[in-house]
């Protein structure tokens, strides 16, 4: 029996399925969200349970500047993707670079905050439960920012080499989903660590 015989002769409406990239990325985001949920639960569970200092309210300051940078990078990556969709490769490169710069500023600010906490305040992973949960949760997020920045840098290199074409718009958009997710997670981390937990 040949499988050709299964073929339906009549012309039917076009067979459209969801995009692989989007479904795959949404699945990955669901998995990442579950990982972050567990870390957030652990953070909230241990708020105020440290047996020794320092406490969050003594050492944490609101990272307003870096938060603004990271959240606005969601807008710039959106503009980059839209530019690529409209075949404006130059504008794409510009917005893509701005996204990279904003993400890098966020990472540098996190580094400065950690440096201050470790060397001025003496807070490390092993100091107390606050230290353990704080560095784990913020570090997990910073790790995701680092992964995102690595991929953005890769895109930037391709853009500089002139290899980015309008047909790559779908890929850029799929990646931007990840970046939006990283930003959304920061909203949760910010609320939990700097607002509720402080």
């Amino acid at each position: 029996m040949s499988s050709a015989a299964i073929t339906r002769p009549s012309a039917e409406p076009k067979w459209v399925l969801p995009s692989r990239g989007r479904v795959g990325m949404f699945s990955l985001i669901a998995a990442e969200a579950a990982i972050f949920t567990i870390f957030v639960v652990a953070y909230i569970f241990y708020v105020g349970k440290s047996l020794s200092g320092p406490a969050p309210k003594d050492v944490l300051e609101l990272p307003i500047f870096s938060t603004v940078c990271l959240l606005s990078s969601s807008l710039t990556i959106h503009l980059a993707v839209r530019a690529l969709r409209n075949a404006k490769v130059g504008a794409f490169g510009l917005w893509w670079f701005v996204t990279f710069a904003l993400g890098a500023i966020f990472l540098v600010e996190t580094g400065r905050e950690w440096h201050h906490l470790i060397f001025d305040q003496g807070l490390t992973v092993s100091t107390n439960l606050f230290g353990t949960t704080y560095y784990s949760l913020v570090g997990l997020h910073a790790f995701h920012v680092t992964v995102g920045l690595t991929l953005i840098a890769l895109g930037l290199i391709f853009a500089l080499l002139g290899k980015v074409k309008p047909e790559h718009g779908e890929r850029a958009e799929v990646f931007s989903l990840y970046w939006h997710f990283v930003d959304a997670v920061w909203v949760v981390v910010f609320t939990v660590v700097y607002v509720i937990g402080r």
Partner: protein
Amino acid sequence: MASDSIALNLVDHGARPIGDRLHDWIVTVDHKKLGILYILYGLIFLVIGGIEALIMRIQLIVPHNHFVSPEVFNRMFTMHGTTMIFFVAMPILFGFGTYLIPLMIGTRDMAFPRLNAFSFWLTAFGGLLLYYSFIGGSGLYGAGEAPDVGWFAYAPLTARAFSPGHSTDFWTLGLLVSGFGSIGTAVNFITTILCMRCPGMTLGKMPLLAWLNLIMGGMVILAISPLTAAQTMLSIDRYLGGHFFDAQAGGSAVLWMHFFWIFGHPEVYILVVPAFAFASEIIPVFSRKPIFGYPVMVGATVGIGFISFSVWAHHMFTVGMSSYGNTFFTVTTMAIAVPTGIKIFNWVGTMWGGKLQLKAPMLFCIGFLFQFLIAGLTGIMLGASPFDWQLSNSYFVVAHFHYVIVGGILFTIFAAFYYWFPKMSGRMYSETLAKWHFWLFLIGFHLTFDFMHIPGMLGMPRRIYTYEPGRGWEIWNLIVTIGMFFQIAGVIAFAFNLLWSAFKGAPAGNDPWDAWTLEWSTTSPPQEYDFAKVPVVRSRRPLWDLKHPEDPDWKYDQ
């Protein structure tokens, strides 16, 4: 272009040196080869995990036995549990999924073939890491060996003070690495099923195997991730001096239990949902009837998927939760029995009035139906918290979950092996040997796990390496161990049957079972491109439509 590749393939076959062919298997991204690699990998670990079980059963055959030391016994039950769940059951089920999903939904490969290969090799290296602990677990400290903390590794056993050396770290790393592999596979399953279906195959016309693997994929994503998070926390505790599970610094050992079981209970359903998928494909074909209640089967499985995330703390009734917690988890545990019961009724409804063909795949599925029912009933017993307070951590629990995993899941895995072996190898297995396998394994299974309930009720705790004579446990332990030898004999018949038939079996043809799903429309084994022409389907049973043009399914349903 398609015809070019066909010609190339025909020329390629046969004459190439063995080194080249092995190289093909290592670098392959073909879903069929990766599926077979997954399955073979799982079978190797099945033997290893089986040997560990055998060592434990020999140790427990008589009181005050000195076959192994208590330390070795602890390592054996830890490695047996971890191996069987993560490196036997999951790879074999993923292997069948990887092999069958593209064939059943009429596409030529998974959505992300390279991710597919990456996931397999992660799983493979995870298993190697775990077993490397036998060699490298002592680390620099000269203490510890293979992990001995139990498969759920409760704190504070995993703290550095109680698990010196690196054995626990190999356990953590092995599960982390293979967990990433599982998440990759789940992403691939979901994307393939949603985005790669052949024209005409709407969600309502997918084979149940594809539906159930879609649901399983979603559960893997939501359940394995918490384990990944918890293992990361454990590593932070052990290597960076963190305090997540360190009670002396205010940390909570109970939090680990919650995190582990929020993974651990859905995990049971991650394993059993693909097993349901096998039964849902095999029972209709050997009853010569379409599946009874297709939409209800899908709905019930979705229900199981959701409820399975709200039952985890029934593993923790004896930890000491509030009465509200106990009540909630008792009620949800009772609730999950409802969709499971619906599925059992539907399989029986499929068989009812059918022309049953009692071939090996069907025999194993019937065994599964009865045994899974009993496993579910003891599950309801244990789900009632007052009953659980009495029997938690006894051999009754061990008997219960082996009834689920061996009596339910392993039986359908054997059914799947016999059902799809002709497709994968192109040859028929020996029905006589398969019947020997079935009856030997059935007798062995019931000797072992029926009688294992009794010492549990008589008070025998799990994980003890020996026991005093005169408590009434001796005869039951003897029977349990004897049953194991029947099971081993059955598995030897199985292994010999597969090996022998793969080389000497009669050619199977494309469709030895007169079945109805798309994988049977291709050659056995399928060519690398699966389908010369991508099929178009109009009903849930495309091959029925093809074979019965005068009475096709699409005239009636949907």
